[in-house]
């Protein structure tokens, strides 16, 4: 049986008996996952390749809906409702739950337009407001000093680490409640990685963060809670220090000591 700690504080998301099946698959890729996600903290998802951690992450903003034929079962509670409902407004949901991808995804437009993109989608046209919020987002993403003199330049001219921080700025500019990070540093060098990790820790004061990572050290460095997943199941969820030092499940212990993975 899985060992899931009871989170005392307020939860941003509550996953209950969640199952996910890809189109045409005979068995679900996620099996009866139950997982509370604490508010204003960082929850890391670790586990070997194919364990379902990215599949779970992409369920929180219903990214799977872009490809027809996938099925959700169970419940993911967010702001008092089950977001898996057929009537869920996905556009609204995705402005509340933002996402950062493995590879930087700077749009083919200027740095300013990249950060302003989400706000413009929400109908914000006021120049001063846009300027202020773009600057604020870039400052919060620790990128302002590097780009303030070239906001009109093409965003693809930035380095990989800068582009990733640009994507973070773009995501926080619309003031989401939750941010999903899908292996955000696996395409970056160690110094850029350090910058992103620092940012993740800073951002949790304002947003709840879920981060998928292949790197256990990274999970230990940035997260408050860690979930270990294996073959589509959540094996263990606990305080990060406890999970890495005194895991309750045998599988978790074997994974974090490198017996498989």
């Amino acid at each position, binding site marked *: 049986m899985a060992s899931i700690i009871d989170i005392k504080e307020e939860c941003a998301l509550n996953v209950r008996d969640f199952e996910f099946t890809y189109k045409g698959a005979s068995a679900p890729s996620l099996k009866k996952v139950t997982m509370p996600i604490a508010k204003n903290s960082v929850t890391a998802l670790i586990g070997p390749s194919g364990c379902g951690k990215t599949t779970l992450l992409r369920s929180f903003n219903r990214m799977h809906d872009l490809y027809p034929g996938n099925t959700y079962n169970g419940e993911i509670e967010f702001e008092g409702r089950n977001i898996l409902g057929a009537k869920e407004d996905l556009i609204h949901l995705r402005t509340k739950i933002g996402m950062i991808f493995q*590879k930087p995804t700077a*749009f083919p437009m200027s740095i300013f337009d990249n950060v302003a993109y989400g706000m413009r989608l929400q109908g914000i046209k006021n120049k001063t407001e846009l300027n202020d919020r773009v600057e604020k987002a870039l400052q919060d993403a620790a990128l302002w000093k590097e780009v303030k003199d070239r906001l009109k330049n093409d965003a693809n001219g930035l380095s990989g680490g800068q582009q990733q921080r640009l994507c973070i700025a773009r995501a926080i500019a619309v003031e989401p409640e939750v941010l999903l990070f899908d292996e955000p540093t696996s395409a970056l060098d160690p110094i850029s990685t350090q910058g992103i990790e620092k940012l993740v820790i800073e951002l949790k004061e304002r947003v709840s963060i879920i981060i998928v990572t292949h790197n256990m050290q990274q999970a230990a460095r940035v997260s408050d809670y860690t979930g270990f997943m294996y073959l589509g199941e959540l094996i263990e969820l606990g305080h990060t220090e406890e999970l890495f030092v005194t895991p309750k499940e045998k599988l978790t212990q074997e994974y974090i000591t490198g017996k498989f993975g």
Partner: protein
Amino acid sequence: MTATQKRIIINRLALAFSTLSAVIALAFLFWILAVLVMKGVDALNWNIFIYEGSPPGYEDSGLKHALIGQLILVGLATLIGVPLGIMAGTYLSEYGKSSNLAHVIRDISDIMMSAPSIVIGAFVYAIVVMPMGHFSAWAGAIALAIIMIPIILRTTDDMLQLVPGTLREAAFALGAPKYKVILDVVYRGAKAGILTGVLLGIARVAGETAPLLFTSFNDNFFTTDLNEAMPSLTVTMFNYAISPYDDWQQLGWAAAFILSMFILGLNILGRLILLAGKRK
């Protein structure tokens, strides 16, 4: 002689033979260009751009009618063909993807690309010229547009598919509706490629004669009336070239030269845009 020496000799022979073949193939291209430039430049003068056609033997005869007619026909075909081609390509890449309908459209479009252009001319004759009762610029432009659509459709489809899927996902993740994702992110990412496809499509139809023969027909006089027969460089060139009059033949060479330079220019421009897009 050892086996190695034998292999080296065979290798050299093969290299020499394939190089020679390439040179011969290219030589024809340069030969054509050289003849065109010599004959064409010889026949060029300002009168060509000032006067319209006239019976053989007149001093004041030119190609103004055919030049303007050509621009109108190609321009009109572009206005019809480019939006249709781009929208159909967008459907294939962004909506149809690998559905059965999308596969059928892609296959038909590929077949259309190799359809004899005179057959398309005959088709337009039957569905536009016959009901209207007369030749018209519209009919010519529609025939050219039909030839242009599959080219633009296919390049648009290919170029849009080159835009990484994660870029689309990132836009969706910010709460963008699908049409916004396509307009703001996907089109921008594929801009250079689509523009190149459009230019190559225009270049392809600009040199067509057969589909115009019985659609826009031809005329020796200047007109901008889209409901009338309209002269084009290609058909004019054809008519002048087979005529027995020396001055008409001269004008034919000039038309050939101007047309070739226009198409060469479009092709080079298309390639430059693609290169510039890739370098970024």
